């Protein structure tokens, strides 16, 4: 095996049964006796290696590890040898030599988690790599959908989201969150529609098991979930995007929400730009599952850590 068991580098090829088992572990941890839970990973060492700044993912992994009793250490670009240009390989080997048993990596280059996992042999959890993947986000999004839609998770996971439609709208081209969800959700039976202008959603996206739409209103018709993505201004250079026009065509606002199916769940991985891809009233309104996403993030990441360190719970 090339990667240590317990690694989570991508959702591409992640079997539905494996997804089900991670979510089942999340459920078990949630209902576990708090005292037992708080020592589950005691004495275990987890390193957070963050080459890119992040509030919610980093804090959520860190709190998850601490809630299980693990010792964490944060290495980030502003405070360490990685700023001086030490290679990812050498940084990984140093962390391993210092006793890290698992590394959580956020990196601005796609594939960095695979490299780190190959070089160290340690279980690596991908906390977002370039424009590639953000697997823990996809899992927390899935759990949020399951809860909000009241999906029964008894049968085969391949049927869990059968008959459900998820519309992912926005800057798909640059979004690791979109990529991860678009690869994961069809495996659970969902119909996924990717939506956005061609500059942000290239035709190549058809290689995934998804539909593509350029018309948000049409895509929303009958949808169960509308997942909005942040417009990554920093990555738009060279692309012809008129932000006013973008908002007019693709923004989630009260009008569109009212047009949608009753019970339509609105999601956003954050950070949001209120007034651009989503209006504040919708983000704060009852259809929004944005805060729950954050809570599920903590729960799912606890499970990923337990799984990575090979502890049975």
């Amino acid at each position: 095996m090339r990667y240590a068991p317990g690694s989570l580098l991508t959702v591409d090829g992640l079997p539905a049964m494996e997804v089900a088992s991670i979510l089942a572990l999340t459920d078990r941890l949630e209902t576990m006796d708090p005292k037992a839970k708080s020592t589950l990973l005691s004495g275990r060492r987890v390193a957070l290696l963050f080459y890119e700044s992040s509030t919610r993912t980093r804090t959520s992994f860190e709190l998850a590890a601490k809630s299980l009793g693990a010792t964490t250490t944060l290495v980030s670009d502003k405070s360490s040898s990685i700023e001086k240009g030490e290679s990812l390989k050498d940084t990984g080997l140093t962390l391993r030599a210092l006793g890290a048993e698992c590394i959580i990596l956020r990196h601005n280059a796609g594939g960095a988690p695979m490299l780190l996992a190959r070089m160290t042999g340690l279980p690596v959890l991908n906390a977002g790599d370039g424009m590639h993947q953000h697997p823990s986000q996809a899992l927390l999004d899935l759990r949020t959908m399951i809860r909000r839609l009241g999906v029964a998770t008894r049968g085969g996971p391949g049927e869990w989201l059968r008959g459900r439609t998820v519309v992912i709208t926005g800057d798909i081209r640059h979004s690791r969150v979109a990529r991860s969800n678009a690869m994961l959700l069809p495996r659970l039976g969902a119909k996924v529609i990717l939506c956005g202008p061609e500059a942000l959603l290239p035709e190549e996206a058809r290689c995934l098991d998804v539909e593509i739409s350029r018309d948000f209103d049409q895509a929303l018709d009958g949808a169960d979930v509308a997942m909005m993505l942040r417009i990554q201004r920093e990555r738009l250079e060279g692309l012809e995007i008129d932000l006013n026009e973008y908002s007019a065509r693709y923004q989630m606002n009260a009008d569109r929400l009212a047009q949608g199916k009753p019970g339509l769940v609105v999601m956003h991985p954050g950070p949001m730009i209120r007034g651009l891809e989503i209006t504040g009233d919708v983000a704060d309104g009852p259809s929004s599952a944005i805060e729950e996403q954050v809570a599920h993030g903590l729960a799912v990441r606890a499970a990923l850590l337990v799984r990575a360190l090979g502890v049975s719970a």
Partner: protein
Amino acid sequence: MLIKGGTVVDPASGVDGLFDVLVRDGRVAAVEGPGVLDRVEVSETFDATGMTVAPGFVDVHVHLREPGQTYKETIATGTAAAAAGGFTTVVAMPNTVPVNDSTASLAWMLDPERGAKVHLYAMPAVTLGSMGEHLTDFESLARAGAVGFTDDGKPVLEDHVMQAALLCAGRLGLPISQHAEDTRLTGGCSMNAGTVAFKLGLRGMTVEAESRIVERDIRLVREIAKVDGVRAHLHVQHVSTAKALEAIRRAKEDGLHVTCEAAPHHFTLTDEAVGDFDTHAKMNPPLRAENDRQAVIAGLLDGTVDCIATDHAPHAAHEKEVEFERAPNGITGLETALGLALKVLGREHGMPVRRVLELMSQNPAAIVNLAGRGTLGVGAVADVVVFDAGREWTFDGSKALSKSRNTPFDEVAMIGRVVGTICAGRVVYRG
């Protein structure tokens, strides 16, 4: 020396059959049927029974990293790898440190002191420092042994610079060898554009980034013929797309002096080989989609592609063990070229051995105007490769003679194994 008992295949002289080859003073002295030369007194006999005996291979595109990056490769190690691959002549690219853009650096490179194991030639830079602005001194460089000019690794982007280069080199009868990439379209790109790049979240190079430059260069060759009456020679390096090949095909039909090369990795692999960000599948031009790979194969079969060139590009392990987007482009290729050509082109696509040899010896020798090379005709320089054309073997990167190991073909099955390489009558490799 008498090379005895083999099947001699020499496309240039039309020889194909059981012959013995007599070598005297570094030249082919006689090629005769079995037994005819038995009574000639020779110091050494090379037993080639059951083997194919052919002109030594010529690679018009290798990176030897000397001067400046000898931790990757040296002229001595790179040419040793060449010999192991059956090559008896290699043409070194100028992107060394410093860039080979002067007669002094050219002379230094070609100096026997460097320890080349096979014939070494070089293409100095088209522009000073390969910066794309000012032409190097073509005339002096030609007198000092340049066999063409290239800014490989970079395109000559400016129209007027390329125009002047083609005209100037054309007057000297030398090719401008172009790395066809419109770098204005490939900023931040690290692989082929398409579904694989989309899935991996990597920025992709479009096929147009290659074809646009090829089309532009062909237009310039055409204009130079019309306006200046000069038959300029454009050589397109490592062509990788159907679109560029189509442009080259049309240019040839129109009688323009346009030639091109294809690299073994481009006819063997597709962008799927990037897998989970394998930097050994990172090169430039990038591995393309299957339709482009098939187009390269079709071009090799129908003659649109003139020769196979390896673009041997050694890099140290630590340089490739980095994030995909940061890794340098290129793979080693000298020791796997024949094995891949006979497997993919020969076995999978029915190309006769004779045609493979044309692509690896006769044609590349012609592109860089090496008269008396790429053939076993009597009087030719005795550059010979002896190989077992049917032998299946597995390439072992750890045993490679190149200083670097950056290859996607480690432990890959190949067909056709070099058992001996003879350069100017001297055995330089024995497998």
